[in-house]
Structure formats: structure tokens, C-alpha cells
């Protein structure tokens, strides 16, 4: 990962200096930022510090990487969890309904809707929402972020549009998984047996279908959440949402290696943690896995 970040063409010193500068300035800044030392030495310096929780200092801003990430983490967490909530609120009823009545009108409408949700570009949907709800109707602010503790009303008003845009995209993906896993569970032998025993439909559904359909749902929700937590760059930019995606993008553009390495490290950790949580949930949902 360290090598990959450094191998990308582009020179952070040249970027930091712009277009007018002298060679002496260039050399001085290169020396100050430690980029004149061998790559292997740079790696071990970084690695030793990272183990102690010190991810270094941004070339661009002079702030510590940990403070830059900490500043943006609340906004990213807020948007990610709000989006997953929107996604599940859309996906679970829609996917279940279409699975219960395959090839019905409901099913077809749901399929078309999720197809639209997946294929409409998120930046386009975001701009349309802004023009309608912030522009024409004037109900919501165009974007930005305020902490919940400062202004709960403003927090919610600013969260609605970005959460809907990312939630619709994720929800569309999840809807398809819900539909197919419910369908599969409905066709399973034990469900047929339960129905043959004369159990009420509701009981069959909650005890025998839902629990089995939950496993793939948890998996795909975990994947979507990990994706949302690593920042949704386009939506963050359009809604001026100060999340990690924007930070990662800025650090790529500026070849701000310390920030970029810190962000990648964090994203890797997020995937590990979510995978762990998903595995733990498996055992809670399906007792067979415990053995």
C-alpha cells in the first residue's frame, strides 16, 4: 500500500509550490518534508510511528493526519448510517413484497424502480434534488453539515437529501438481494414442510422464511455500509458534505501521501471490523454456524 501510494506519478512538492518557484525553494521543501530520503527509510519511519498511533502530518495543511480524519469522521458516520437506514426502509418491504408475489405488478414495479435506482447517476439525482427542494420549493438547505449537538433541526434538514441519494442507490442493490433470498427461502424444503404441517402463513414466514433470508441480507448490507463508510465522494462534493471521501480525493490530487496512507489504513480497518461484525451476526442468526 505504501509503495503503491508513492509509485503513482506526480510530485507533492511541485504541486505544493504551484508553477512559479526557484530550484532552491523546491530543494528546501523536499528536504523539510522528508521526501529526499530513500523510500525504504520513509516507509519504516512511517510504519514505526503509525504503530504508535501517529500517522504523520499533512504536506498540504500542516495538520496531523489523525486530526484531519477525526474532524471528518462524524460527518461520514452520520451519512453512512442514515443512508443504510434509508436503504433498508426501501429494500426490505419492496424486496419482500416482490418475492411474495413474483411476476405480479408489484414485483415488476419494484424491479423497474431498483433498476432506475442503480442506473441513474448519483450526481445527477443530487443536483435535481437540490434544484427542486432547495431551489424551487425552498424547503431544505442546499448542503453543508452541522453537528447534531449544535443544531438538531439543521442537522436533519441537511442530512435528508444526501442520505436519500446514497440510500436509494444502496437500497436498489439490496432490494434485489432481499427478493432473491426471500424467494429462495420460500422454495426451501423446510418451508414446504411447515406449510404442510398446517402452520399459519404468518408463523411460517417469520420463523422459517425471514430467518433464512436474513443471512444474505446481512452480508450485502455489510458490504454497502463499508462502501458508504469509505466515503461517497460525488455525493459529498455536490452536497458540500465534509466527509472522508472528499479528504481522500483531495489528498490523491495533492499527492498528500501521509493523509492518503492514513485514509487507506482507516478504510482497511473499517472493512475488517464490518466483516467481523457480519460474522458475529451470522452466528446470532443461524445457530448452525456456531458449531
Amino acid at each position, binding site marked *: 500500500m505504501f509503495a503503491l501510494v508513492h509509485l*503513482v*506519478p*506526480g*510530485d*507533492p512538492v*511541485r*504541486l*505544493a*509550490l*504551484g*508553477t*512559479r*518557484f*526557484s*530550484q*532552491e*525553494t523546491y*530543494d*528546501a*521543501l523536499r528536504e523539510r518534508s522528508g521526501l529526499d530520503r530513500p523510500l525504504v527509510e520513509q516507509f519504516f519511519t512511517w510504519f514505526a510511528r503509525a504503530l504508535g498511533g501517529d500517522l504523520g502530518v499533512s504536506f*498540504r*495543511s*500542516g*495538520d496531523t493526519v489523525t486530526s484531519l480524519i477525526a*474532524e*471528518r469522521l462524524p*460527518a461520514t458516520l452520520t451519512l453512512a448510517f442514515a443512508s443504510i437506514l434509508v436503504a433498508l426502509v426501501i429494500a426490505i418491504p419492496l424486496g419482500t413484497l416482490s418475492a411474495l408475489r413474483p411476476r405480479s405488478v408489484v414485483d415488476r414495479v419494484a424491479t423497474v424502480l431498483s433498476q432506475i435506482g442503480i442506473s441513474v447517476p448519483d450526481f445527477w439525482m443530487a*443536483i435535481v434534488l*437540490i*434544484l427542486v427542494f*432547495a*431551489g424551487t420549493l*425552498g424547503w431544505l*438547505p*442546499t*448542503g*453543508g*453539515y*452541522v453537528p447534531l449537538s449544535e443544531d438538531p433541526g439543521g442537522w436533519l434538514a441537511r442530512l435528508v437529501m444526501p442520505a436519500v441519494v446514497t440510500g436509494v442507490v444502496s437500497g436498489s442493490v439490496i432490494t434485489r438481494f432481499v427478493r432473491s433470498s426471500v424467494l429462495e427461502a420460500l422454495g426451501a424444503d423446510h418451508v414446504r414442510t411447515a406449510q404442510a404441517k398446517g402452520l399459519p402463513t404468518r408463523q411460517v414466514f417469520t420463523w422459517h422464511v425471514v430467518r433464512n433470508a436474513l443471512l444474505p441480507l446481512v452480508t450485502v448490507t455489510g458490504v454497502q455500509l463499508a462502501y458508504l463508510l469509505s466515503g461517497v465522494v460525488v455525493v459529498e*462534493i*455536490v*452536497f*458540500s458534505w*465534509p466527509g472522508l471521501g*472528499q*479528504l481522500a480525493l*483531495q489528498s490523491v*490530487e*495533492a*499527492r498528500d501521501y501521509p493523509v492518503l496512507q492514513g485514509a487507506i489504513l482507516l478504510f482497511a480497518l473499517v472493512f475488517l471490523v464490518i466483516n467481523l461484525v457480519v460474522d458475529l451476526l451470522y452466528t446470532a442468526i443461524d445457530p448452525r454456524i456456531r458449531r
Partner: protein
Amino acid sequence: MRSTRLLALAAVGALSLTACSGGGDSVDTGGGSGGDNVLIAAVSAQPDQFDPHVTNAYASFQVLENVYDTLVVPNAEDLTMEPSLATEWTTSEDDLEWRFTLREGVTFHDGSEFDSADVVYSYNRIIDEELSNSYRFATVESVEADGPQTVVIRVTQPTPNLPALIGSFKGMAIIPEGAAEDVDLTTEAVGTGPFRLESSSASSTVLTANEDYWGQAPSIDGVEFRYITEPAAALTALQNGEVQWTDNIPPQQVDALGGDDSVELATTPSVDYWYMSMNFARPPFDNPQVRRAIATAVDREAVTQAARFDAAQPNQTAIPEDSFFHTDYAPFDVDVEAARQLIEQSGVPTPIRMGLMVTDEYPETVTAAQVIASQLEPIGIEVEVQTTDFATWLDRQSQGDFDAFMLGWLGNVDPFDFYHAQHITGGASNYQKYSNPQVDDLLTRASTETDEKSRKDLYDQATRLIVDDVSYLYLYNPDVVQAWAPGLSGYEIRADKAINFEGVELP
């Protein structure tokens, strides 16, 4: 096409510059209570940091313009240098010594008095630490104090553009003696300007009015710079009253906004210029006839229309028409037939392949390159538009790894900024490897010529040669486009894109 030229507002700017010294008196704001009297400005990017001597980001200078001062400052009308922290300056008989008399009664935001030691400290910091603007002191031998109110700058050769070098932007700001050691200048600011830096986050930067400002203290309580990257969102925020000012306007809407009552739109030609340049070290672009053929085939009007939706002035030289140093010279008329003949005469077999390197950091270069590609096709030049990110672009430019590239030079004030390092043999910005002894001689003489008329003559001659040799193929000077809420007064749009809110009053 310009909708409204608000240069008439210049009168208001003059008000802010007629310094009525005496610091201490705080002015009754007269308007609103608490946070209501704060101007909210939508800008497109977050400042990278606030150390004026280190940063190079326009987003940072938008803020710093309101926080720091320089010894001299460009006026709003024609960017000639006027007093700021220095009230007057003189040069010695041999033009090798400049004496600046400093303004009295100026205090920094931390309460300390401003004097000559601060100027000496600030300039020596830039020179000794080789900070990004140290090249501006290339001819400076020493910066010394002569008593608390006088600074003496000695130069190794006459430097007529010294005021422009130390005043054209806040990268040459004066900070208090020892500030770099005492405070973290990347996050804090200790200036003498009309506003103090209050706080900065990932969403916005907040300034508060400096009641002790040496000029007219601001009538607003503060400014919040809010980062809104998406132009459609910034414009909507202006229209629905969330913000009162923005410079982030979708270019394709500039025309329509002229007739829109919900916003006040202003445009003015800037001192930026955009150009294309070919690699003199790489055949067949070393051939003057090939370069002239390309300069003849490019339709600057069409390029400008596509890249800027007409919010720009086509120009065959670098300096815009309104400027004293403008060279009235436009030898190339669009003529495909003549261009084809030039290629034939050059003896270079067609098709000629040309990679045109552009960067998505400046999307207008990508659009312009596509138009240029289609214009060069009929004369037998196959252009491959190569779009890269800016970091890669800069790398390739510095290594000379290109056939041709497009970019702009921004914020030029003196003709030296427009021409010198770009075209002199071995110049720091002469990436195209242009070399013409006549041009070298003219540029060198112009850089030390103290008589303004003779200086203009020298630059005029150099410009004609540069254009004829197609060292740069000049395309256009873009307009500055800004908009604000109707009723907002005291703001002045400027050709150097400096954003100064000190005289603003909210509707």
C-alpha cells in the same frame, strides 16, 4: 459578452483606501445585532492552510486577502501599486536602493505595534527559508530597518517592478516579528487586515471584523467562507438566500443570469491568460512554419466560446486590452488554406501527430483542446488530446515529456509576470525550450528599465517576436465572474480576482 460591468463601484473602493489612520476608534456598526450582520460567501474550495508565505492555493488567498496587509497594494481600477502599510516610497539616484516609509498607528491582531522590524522579519523569512515566493526577491541584496518607520531594500540591479513583486498579492504579507516561531501560522493568522481569522473547519472559515483596523473598520461583523464545490448548488444557495456572495457560477448560466433579478451578476476581464505551447526540442514542432501554421488554423473565437461560453476575451498576446502594457498585435487571421500552405512549405510530411497535454484540474483546457483538435485536422495535424491529473501533468511538463500543452498563468500584474520567465532562454517557466537572443536582450533590458514608456516599448517589441515565433500560442483572457445578493453594496469586482470584503454592507 458582459452583462454588467460594475467598475462604477470603484468609488466605494476608493473609500476603503483613503486611510483615516489613528487606529483606536471603533466604528459603530449601526446594523443588525449578533450573527445577523455576517456576510456568507460561497467559495469553491477549502483553504489548504493559512501561512501566507507558504500556501499557493487561491482558496487560501481568498481568505488571507481580508486578514493580512502588504506594504503596497494594487488599486482596483488598473492594478497600479498604492500605499498600504507603507505610505510612501522613494528610490535612490542609481535605482539600487528603495526606502519605504511605514504607516504609523497600525497594530496586529495580537495587539502588538507594527514597525520596520516586522517587515524585515517577514521578508527575511521568505528569503532565508527559501519559501515559495523567494523568487520575487531574486534581485534583492538586503532588507534592513532604518529606524522604526523606515525600511530600506537594496537591489543588485534596477528593479522597476519591485512594488509589484512585494505587493501584488498577500503571499508577501507582513507578519509580526517572531510570529513563525511563536504561533502555528498554518492554522492561526496574525495580520493587520480588516478581519481576524476566527476559526476554520472542514465546512467553512469564519472571520470577525477587526475594530482596530487602521483603515475604515468593516461595517459587517464578520465573513463566513462556506465551501460549496458544485456550482449549481452554490448558485441555488445564492438564489434562495443561504449565501450572499459567490464566485462559483456555472459558466453556461452566466449569460442567462444577466437578466435575472434574484442575483446581481458582475463580470470584468481578468489579468489571467490561457495559452497553448509546443515543444521546441521535439520535431516537427521546432519548425517555425509548422508552429505558424497551427497558430493560423486555430480559431480563438470558437475556442473561447466552447471553453468559457464567451466569458473571455480572445487575445493573440498575453496582456489584456484594458492594461497600459497591452500590445496591440494580432498577426494571425483564421485561414485554413494559408495554414495548409505553410505546412506544405515546411516540407514536413502529413499527417503530423501531436499529443496535446491538458489536465482535468482545469476542465476548460480539456474542452479547448478538443476544439483545437478539430480545427487542426483539416491542415493535416492529428491531435491526440491527453488528459491527465495535475500532478502527472506537472511532472511531464518539467521533464519536457510533451508535444504540446495547454495551461494558464493567473494573477499577473506586471509585464515581467506575463513574459519574463516564460520566454527568456533557460527561464524557470520556459518549459517549451524557446530561445531567441533578440527576445532575451529585450526582456533583460525591460526588466531593469525604470522609464515606464521605454519599458513598454521594450515589452512591445519582445511580445511581437514571441507571438511571431509562436513560443506561446495565446488564446484568451478569461473574465472574472462573481454574483451577489441584490442590495449588497460596497463590494468591488477586481481584475486580479482579489476578494476584499472590508467595505461590504449587507442588504
